[in-house]
């Protein structure tokens, strides 16, 4: 037994050592905001820098529906957005559990453990007037509109300009400018 344990420990130590050599070191600690507080603020900014067609709203005072699909990572952060307005439309935060309740959402944040894979959700939401956002790696390439990525502890975005436009939405030049990357993806899969 002793021999075995040492053999495994040796293997593990080697593997861990090799891993440490490649792994990124933890950065210096600076005063920070929480990741999802910043992402929530970004969601709010998207309502400023993306234009939805008026046809996406049944009435001039109809709510702008910001929907979180899957697990909600924002905690109470989204509550701070609620009550603000997109034009004449009060922003309303919803957490639908069923896919049919996603119909009519203007902005859909796809969290983890959504009932469908992000790519499939995007395909399901393939209709005008929806902006899809996720932190899922590869989301923009899979046909999602906006993907959050973290670079050096800062939130960045990858924008699939084609997905935004095909949704009938107009991203402002500024939004495209601040994106880390703009893909013009064909969208993954069928």
């Amino acid at each position, binding site marked *: 037994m002793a021999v075995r344990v040492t053999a495994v420990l040796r293997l593990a130590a080697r*593997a861990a050592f090799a891993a440490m050599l490649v792994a990124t070191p*933890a950065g210096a600690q*600076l005063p920070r905001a929480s990741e999802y507080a910043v992402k929530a603020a970004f969601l709010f900014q998207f309502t400023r820098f993306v234009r939805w067609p008026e046809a996406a709203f049944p009435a001039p005072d109809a709510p702008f529906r910001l929907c979180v699909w899957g697990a909600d990572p924002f905690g109470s952060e989204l509550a701070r957005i609620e009550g603000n307005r997109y034009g004449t439309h009060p922003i309303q935060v919803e957490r639908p559990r069923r896919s049919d309740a996603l119909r009519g959402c203007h902005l859909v944040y796809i969290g983890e453990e959504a009932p469908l894979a992000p790519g499939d959700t995007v395909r399901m939401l393939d209709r005008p007037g929806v902006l899809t956002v996720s932190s899922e790696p590869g989301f923009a390439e899979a046909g999602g509109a906006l993907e959050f990525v973290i670079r050096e502890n800062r939130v960045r975005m990858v924008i699939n300009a084609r997905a935004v436009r095909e949704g009938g939405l107009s991203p402002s030049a500024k939004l495209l400018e601040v994106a880390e990357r703009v893909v013009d993806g064909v969208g993954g899969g069928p």
Partner: protein
Amino acid sequence: MSARTLAFRICLLLAAGSSIGIACAAQSAEQDVDLLSLDLEQLLDVEVELASRAPQRAFDAATAIYVIDRSDIERSASRQLPDLLRQVPGLHVGRWDGNKWAVSSRNALGRFASTMLVMVDGRHVYTPLYGGVRWEQLNLPLDDVERIEVVRGPAGPLWGANAVDGVVNIVTRTGAATAGTLVAASAGSGSPNGELVLRRAVGAGDASYRVTAHYVALDEGVYLPTATSTHRGARIAGETANDAGTARRVDLRADWAAGERASATLVAGVFDADFDEERLTGGAVVPNAIAQRSAYAQLQWRRATDDGGEWRFGAAATRGVVEDDIADDRETLVDLDLQRAGAAGPLQLIWGLGFRHYRSTLRVPDLETCRACFGAHPERGGNDTASGFVHGRWQASPSLAVVAGVRLESSDYVDFEWQPTLRIVAGDRQRTLWAAATRALRTPTRLDRDLAFYRVPDAALPAFGCLEISGTTCRVGDRDSEPWEVVALEAGFRAQPSARFGYDLVAFEHDFRNTIQRGATVGRDRVQGVEAEARFAPAERWQIGIGYANHRGRNLRASGAIETLPLLPRHSAMLRSSLALSPAWSFDVQASHISSLPRGAAPPLQAQARVDLRLAWRPRPGLSATLAVLDALDEVQAEYIEALKINSGAGRGVQFGFEWRFE
């Protein structure tokens, strides 16, 4: 067993952070500024404190897990499901004739390899007759497969007997994910030479369903040189072998959401296939025609609870028939499964109860004329198994968690047996370090207990080592068979330094004790190894995956003598590349290399390389055409040699495929 994904259990138990359904509230750092008042550029400058991780599926798991996702499946040159497993470092895949595969995890390849648990949507699909998997029955249309979750290493404490050195769970796609109509066909040379898929799926509101019909024709292989086959010169290398096959299946899946909290899934299907092969009997090569039929149905029901967890209930039934010239096996399996996941004080807990009913009738087809024919005594047999498990996860600190669990199982074949595990996982969002110690069991199978030979001539009886003789029937199966045991130590590290680069390293040792025959320890197997995997994206449209496994496996005889022959190849390496040439064109490569395997007096399995290529053209959404070159290096080689069957090789194949999807 109810259908559930590995991800479900792994998230629940092993992920660092909160559990399913619990919103992972961002830990608000002190915020003096109102973030909403910042403009876009200012926001980009805010340094963020990364959220303690909500379950990130596989990433935080304290186990060696590999997920073959939908994009890997779409990009596979081969349309045969077992071939997809070749990309997983640590798994060994060998196609040994025109229609059959052997797959093992960290262990020797074998047709009767019986230490891996294989499931489709959580339903067990290994046969309790001998514990092995008939991979030819798992050749699902890849268009219906959402992902394949692979755990290397023992998972018995969570999953039950047979999860000794690996678990493979094939997750099928919902009607909502496949809505519309699909017509797909492929044809060409090599194996398979023809495939047809027709699918209709509807996803509307609370319900979705999918019906798929699938037909596949598998081409014959070619005979191998005498040195790497069992035909003993009775067949000429390079000639077409007698091992074609056809398989037909219809699968149904329906999903419902009942209100906000409850949901249900029904899967059902029928399968019917004819496979040819040749076997070795008394030194002669004789053809054998195999007919396989099965039908299955499975219902799962889930309900979310107030504590963020859920109840699950599952029921599954399978009826299967395998008929050939040697045996006629009919089996019935019923699984019932209940489980609860949720929070209990500082612990995340999951517990479950299961019941399995298995009956089989194994008849000798030509009992009047055969000599020393293979069978089971009694012809009808089986067992009922009751099991229960509980696992708890304690988050000791934001970056450290401890998981402990145990499974108890009792059946007609084994008394109370327990399988415990202890796991530690530490890490943050980008890095995870884990270690685990586990005891898992492979419980005796029906053949371990009931294997018998009928119509054995008197003079030959002593040579069989019979434990019971009645007339000319000799039972060699041992009613005192005990479980095989593995004690495994594992450790791993995985990291995702950037969105474009991630890697996974695992080191392990498995120590087997096989005690199946006559209560004596027949042998001990020891397998040690390291497995590494990395994925990176050199350019936006180009993704690369590489893998490597180094396995050292030895058998230690009961006498204490160490067998010098390795159990499995020492080195295996894999490479995948996916390149989007343009919006409409993509080019994919899958390659692998396996080192040679010495086999003592028998000729070694040669070192072998395999390269598969795929070029896809998607002129518009819903329409695609693909050209695949399988085994482009055209190495006609034995991947696995089964002692009593004639194996064949494949060589290069060219396949043309076409897919059309519409509303």
